[in-house]
C-alpha cells in the first residue's frame, strides 16, 4: 500500500484534511460508511479516512464514471458511499449523477474536492468554477458548500443522517475553524445571518467566500456603511425566505461565490428576486463565466477576477451610489 504522511489533526486548517478526519470519525459511529477514490486520495484527504478505516476505501482507478456507478451499487446494498475526486472532474460523470444516482434516488454522497480558486497553481483543467450551473439543476440532488471546518463537520453529519443524493463542495486551502459561532446549527435548506449591523448593503455568500464577506463587512463598517452578511451553505434547496428577509431591509445586495457569476449563487439570487418582483440592485463577485481559469498564484487570480474584500467594498459602494475608487 502506498504510504502517506498524516497531517497533525490539531494543527492543520486545510478543509480537505479536516474532511478526512471528520469522515473517519463518522465511520466509527456509522459502520455502513464507505468511501471511493479515483486515485487522488492524499490530495482530497481520503487517505486519512483510509488510515483509520483500511478496507473501507474502494479504488476505482482513474475512472470517474465508474467511481459514481460503483458508489450507486454500494448504496443499493445499504452502504453510505462517499465517492470523492476533484470537483472539476464532476464534468466527467454528470450523466451518472443525473440518471443512475438522482433519477434512481440513491443514497450517494459525492464530495467535490479542490473547489474553485483556492487550489494551488492548478489551472483550467483542475479548478472548478462552472460546475454548479449543472449540479444545481439535477433533480433530487442536495448541493452544499461549507465555509469553515466547524460547519463542514456539521454538514458531513447531516449528510449521513439524511437519506438521498448529496453533492458537497470542499476547498483544499486552509480555512478558519469557526466563522459562524458555537450556537450555530446547520440545517439542510437553511441559510444563516452571520453578522447584522445595519441595513445599507447585504452580502449574500456561500462556501469559502464567507471569509471574504466578513473581511469586507469590517471594511464597510469602518466606512460607515451598515452591512448584513447572510451565508447560504445550502445551495439546493436554497433558502429564499432568508433572502427575502434581507432584501426587505437593505438597499442593495452583493453575492459572493467561489464559482463563476452565472449558474451558481448569483443566479439563484437573481431568480428568486425576479420571481417576487424585488427590484434591488445585485452585484456579483465571482469568476468570469467566459474565461478558463489560467494558472497563477491565488492572489493573482483574486486580482484578475476582482474577488478580494476590497473589490467587494468597491462594488458595494458603487451599488449604493457612493463614491467609487
Amino acid at each position, binding site marked *: 500500500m502506498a504510504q502517506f504522511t498524516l497531517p497533525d489533526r490539531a494543527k492543520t486548517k486545510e478543509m480537505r484534511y479536516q474532511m478526512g478526519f471528520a469522515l473517519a470519525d463518522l465511520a466509527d459511529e456509522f459502520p455502513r460508511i464507505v468511501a471511493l477514490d479515483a486515485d487522488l486520495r492524499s490530495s482530497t484527504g481520503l487517505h486519512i479516512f483510509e488510515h483509520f478505516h483500511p478496507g473501507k476505501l474502494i479504488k476505482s482507478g482513474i*475512472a470517474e464514471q*465508474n467511481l459514481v456507478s460503483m458508489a450507486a451499487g454500494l448504496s443499493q*446494498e445499504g452502504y453510505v458511499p462517499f465517492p470523492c475526486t476533484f470537483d472539476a472532474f464532476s464534468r466527467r460523470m454528470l450523466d451518472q449523477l443525473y440518471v443512475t444516482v438522482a433519477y434512481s434516488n440513491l443514497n450517494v454522497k459525492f464530495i467535490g474536492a479542490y473547489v474553485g480558486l483556492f487550489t494551488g497553481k492548478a489551472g483550467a483543467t483542475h479548478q472548478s468554477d462552472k460546475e454548479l450551473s449543472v449540479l444545481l439543476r439535477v433533480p433530487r440532488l442536495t448541493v452544499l458548500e461549507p465555509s469553515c471546518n466547524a460547519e463542514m463537520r456539521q454538514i458531513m453529519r447531516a449528510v449521513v443522517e439524511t437519506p438521498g443524493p448529496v453533492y458537497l463542495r470542499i476547498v483544499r486551502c486552509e480555512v478558519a475553524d469557526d466563522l459562524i459561532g458555537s450556537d450555530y446549527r446547520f440545517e439542510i435548506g437553511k441559510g444563516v445571518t452571520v453578522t447584522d449591523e445595519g441595513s445599507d448593503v447585504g452580502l449574500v455568500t456561500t462556501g469559502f467566500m464567507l471569509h471574504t464577506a466578513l473581511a469586507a463587512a469590517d471594511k464597510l463598517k469602518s466606512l460607515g456603511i451598515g452591512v448584513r452578511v447572510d451565508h447560504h451553505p445550502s445551495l439546493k434547496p436554497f433558502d429564499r425566505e432568508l433572502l427575502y428577509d434581507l432584501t426587505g431591509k437593505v438597499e442593495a445586495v452583493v453575492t459572493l461565490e467561489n464559482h463563476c457569476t452565472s449558474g451558481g449563487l448569483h443566479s439563484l439570487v437573481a431568480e428568486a428576486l425576479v420571481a417576487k418582483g424585488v427590484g434591488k440592485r445585485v452585484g456579483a463577485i465571482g469568476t468570469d463565466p467566459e474565461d478558463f481559469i489560467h494558472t497563477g498564484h491565488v492572489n493573482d487570480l483574486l486580482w484578475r477576477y476582482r474577488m478580494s474584500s476590497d473589490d467587494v467594498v468597491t462594488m458595494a459602494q458603487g451599488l449604493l451610489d457612493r463614491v467609487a475608487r
Partner: protein
Amino acid sequence: MTRLPPLPASIEVASGAFDPLDVARLWIPWRADTRTRIDSLPFHTDHAELLHNTETLAYLIRSYTTWQMTCAGLGHPGGSFSEAEFLAILFNYVLRFDAAAPDWPMRDVFYLSKGHACPAVYTVLAVFGYFEVERLKFYGMWGSGLESHPDATETPGIEVSGGSLGQIPGVAVGRSLGMRFNGPDHGDRMIYVLMGDGECNEGSVWEAFMAAGHYKLDNIVFVIDYNKVFAKGFLAQDMSLEPLADKLRAFNLEVYETRNGHDVAELIELFNVLGAQRRGKPAAVILNTVKGKKVDQAQYNPNWHTSAPRDAAAAGLWIDELWEHDGKRLGIPPEFPEALKAITEIVPPLHAASDTITDRQQ
C-alpha cells in the same frame, strides 16, 4: 419501495369472450417458488416441460410486447425481441426473486443496462406478478408508472433507472462489492446485467469490466445481447466490437458464448454450467441473437430498433406471425391472438391539444 398509481383505465373484454390478459389460462411459471432455484438437467423428467414452458413464455413476451408498444405508439421491438428467450429463461429458471416483495434482501439482482429494451422487461415483470398485465397497455402514458425508459423509483422490479447507456455495469460492480462486504451469508447471491452490444462502444462499460476483473467479482454475469444491429446501422459497418471474446478475456472475464441465444435448450445448459462455475472471475456471456427475432419485417433491421407497429392493423400482422411461428406449435389457442388484436388500440393522450402540433406519436 415503489408504489404504482392506479390503472389509468380499465380494459373491456366482452362477457364470455376469450380474455387475452388472463395469463394463467395460457401459462403458469415453471417454478412454484421463485425464491428458489431448482436445477433441471436433460435426463430429468421435467426437462421437456421446462423447455416448453419457457418457449411459451418467450412467445407471450413477444406478443404482449407487440400489443404494449402499439398501444403506446412507442418502444424498441428490435432489442425487446432479441432478448426474449434470455428474459424467459432468466425469470422462469435462473433468477431468485419475489414479485410480492421486490425488496427481499436475499434476492439475485437483475439489471437492465440497455434501458431502451424495457418493453419486454415490463412484460416479463407483469406476467410474474410485479404489476398487472393490463398496465402494459398504458406504457409511456402520463402517470402510468411505466416510463419510456425505466424509472426505478416508480416501477417495481426495476433495480436502477436507466436509458443512458453504459452506466449500469459499474453499478453492478459496486453492488457486488457491497454483497462481499455483507459477508458470507450473501455469498450465493448473483447479479445478472443485460447489456446491448452497441452499448459496449461506451468507454464506461470497459471501466466497469476492468474493475469487475480487478476485484474478481465472480457473482456478476454480464450478458451481452449480441444482435449485431445498432439503432441506425450495423455494428460491423459503424463500430465493430470484434474480436469481442478476446477483449473480454483480456479484461479478466470468463467468457461464455452461445451458438444461438434463442435456443432455450442451449440457454438452460448455459445457466446450468454458469451455476457451477464460480472461478474467481466475473462471467461474460456473448448471447448471439437476431435483432427483431421472429418478425420477418423487423429481423436484423435497424429500422425496427425504435419503431412500434404504427396501428392495430400493423400490430395484427405481427401478432399473427408470432402465433404462426411459435404459438400454434406450443398449443396456444388461435383465440388468443384474435383476442389480443381485438384489444389493440392506440392509447390517446389525456388532454386535447390547445395548439396544433403534428407528431406521429400518440
